[in-house]
């Protein structure tokens, strides 16, 4: 006999309906998690990821609402669609978590990361590094006769690309903040 058909709804808002739950492809998602700014809250979020075996590609956290004692955690994670849904549901049930937004599926968003690059070198190499930094709109924030520190803000891909270029030109140290992200538009 034929399987029971599910009556189609008129709304399509549930996150469960958005993507094929059986897809095996790994997806990269940026989650914005608004939490109470209290002791241990970051440990709860990180402990959830390690305890349940989820990935963290990057994580940033800082207080964003001093009056309301709220912090915003931006997590970039990868997983199959069903794992991503689990991550969001698990985050949502942590008591000091107020909101969980999946910026990757909730509409267009901007994502930026800040990075500092220490590049050492002499002569032609040094000039080439400076020239590329200009093309990438990286700022020089420290300089000695033998080194530069460049500061760059951009998408994680842009930072990856710049780091790849700097490596043969004497990149010795790299510090990245991890992604911060906001949805586009007025809301």
């Amino acid at each position: 006999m034929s399987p029971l058909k599910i009556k189609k709804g008129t709304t399509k808002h549930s996150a469960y309906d958005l993507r094929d739950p059986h897809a095996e492809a790994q997806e990269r998602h940026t989650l914005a998690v608004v939490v109470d700014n209290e002791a241990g809250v970051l440990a709860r979020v990180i402990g959830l990821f390690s305890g349940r075996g989820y990935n963290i590609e990057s994580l940033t956290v800082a207080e964003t609402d001093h009056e309301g004692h709220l912090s915003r955690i931006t997590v970039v994670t990868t997983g199959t669609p069903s794992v991503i849904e689990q991550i969001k549901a698990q985050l949502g049930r942590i008591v000091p978590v107020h909101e969980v937004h999946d910026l990757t599926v909730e509409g267009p968003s901007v994502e930026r990361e800040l990075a500092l690059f220490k590049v050492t070198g002499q002569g032609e190499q040094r000039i080439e590094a400076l020239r590329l930094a200009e093309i990438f709109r990286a700022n020089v924030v420290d300089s000695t006769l033998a080194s530069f520190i460049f500061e760059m803000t951009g998408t994680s891909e842009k930072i990856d690309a710049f780091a790849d270029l700097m490596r043969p030109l004497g990149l010795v140290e790299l510090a990245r903040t991890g992604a911060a992200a906001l949805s586009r538009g007025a809301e």
Partner: protein
Amino acid sequence: MSRQMTGAKMIVQALKDQGVDTVFGYPGGAVLPIYDEIFLQNDIRHYLVRHEQGAVHAAEGYARSTGKPGVVLVTSGPGATNAVTGLTDALLDSIPLVVLTGQVPTFMIGNDAFQEADTVGITRPCTKHNWLVRDTANLSGTIHEAFHVAMSGRPGPVLVDIPKDVQFASAPYTAPEDMPVSHYSPKTVGDAERVEQLVDLIERAERPVFYTGGGVINSGRAACDSLRELVDGTGFPITSTLLGLGAYPANGKRWLGMLGMHGLYEANLAMHGCDLMIAVGARFDDRITGRVQDFSPKSAKVHIDIDPSSINKVIHVDVPIIGDVGTVLDQALALWKSRGSKTQSDAVTRWWHQIGDWRKVDCLAYTDNPKTIRPQHAISRLEALTRDHPDRYITTEVGQHQMWAAQYLGFNEPHRLMTSGGLGTMGYGFPASIGVQVAHPDALVINVAGDASWLMNMQELGTAAQYRLPVKQFILNNERLGMVRQWQELLHGERYSHSWSESQPDFAKLAEAFGAHGIYCDDPADLDDAIMEMINCDGPVLFECVVEKHENCFPMIPSGEPHNKMLLGENASTADAIGTSGAVLV
């Protein structure tokens, strides 16, 4: 008007204002100010356990049998770490607990002080939430919030860690009614459109089954009543997980029995062959699903649960309904009735005929042995002799006896079975029975136990004796770790590595040593009289029931197999029944 008081006094006051009358605990250096306040009042009764793990399990028994939160008070360091097993147990089985731990003074935290442990760090993954209170001004508010979190949404254990200087310092007391509204308030009402999809499926299903879990019991008596009304109204069959037993009565017309690894044949085959599965407050645990890829392959699945993270975690469902089980069932009932209470009754009758054929397998049948007590027989006689008791509560330890208890005992009301389902904590049942007896002083409370599990928390015999709690310990003694032995027989070439006890105590003498009553029985002919002696004794009883040593628990879905590949008892061939891929599963 706010009253100024010390932190210790505040704790006792907050407990009273939360309606607490019972605390299970064990004193120590970091909680002495609180124990001092407990000494000075009579509203809250404190039960001194013999080990902190026992306190938490006792509180679990109290909570499960009453629907109220269980409260535990223990000291810092080892007091807190000993509570960890109980906290994890309560988290997995969604039992509301409020555990208060002492902590070294704030100015000593981080210095490796005497009896210091990072309690909130250690218990973060095994509580629903926890708090370290650094300022007496926040103490009463934190305790009220702790009760709110423990009881709201999917219930669970919470912990409040209270440094000793915070207990001594004074601050204004915040009463519960003066608390700001907590931001933690899970959604309880189901999405109307989803409920409509459910009702639509109920009207069209030809082979439906209800699959219910502990969430129904946690939701409360009203949810159980709504479930009963919907099941009886539709005439659909119903099965339940271990933790859900009693939500629908075992003597009810639509009852199939428990499902899962050691569930009934007809229940598991109904799950496998259904075209509509209505999961209510259950979480598709691996003990229920068997091989996930082959789980109920042809059914439309509806899942009602208050915890969004339970939805689609293991099994993808077609209609998820997030909300309180009782509320959603009421929504569904109201809509279904308003649309004329329709079902495909002819098809459902045919479905019942099919189920009737499966029932004829009589999967729980066993042959009595006139010389040795078979464990199934022991539990069956216990059922026969206590079934009609007006107020019977059962706790269990973990293992074969636990499954036999679930198979052969009938639970007609919720809150009557207390057992460690999710974590499978050996040593749970005895302290839990103490908690149940404290909550129901006149009830018949029986812990169905195995010898190995029971010995794990046997020190609580002191607690039972001290408070004259007439708990009955019905110990099936096979001198084995029965379930371990069974798996070694089926999976590990009958190499019985460390699964038997070489030296057993004389249980009757042990009882006597603690001031309890001991009963020994190894003859099927004496069993009924011995059970009656246990029931009629007005104090704690240790009943050693010597049973067949090599009994296996059937039916059994071997690890890594789907529902329709069950092993049955007696006539079942167990040779090569389990593939090597199943052996890696627990």
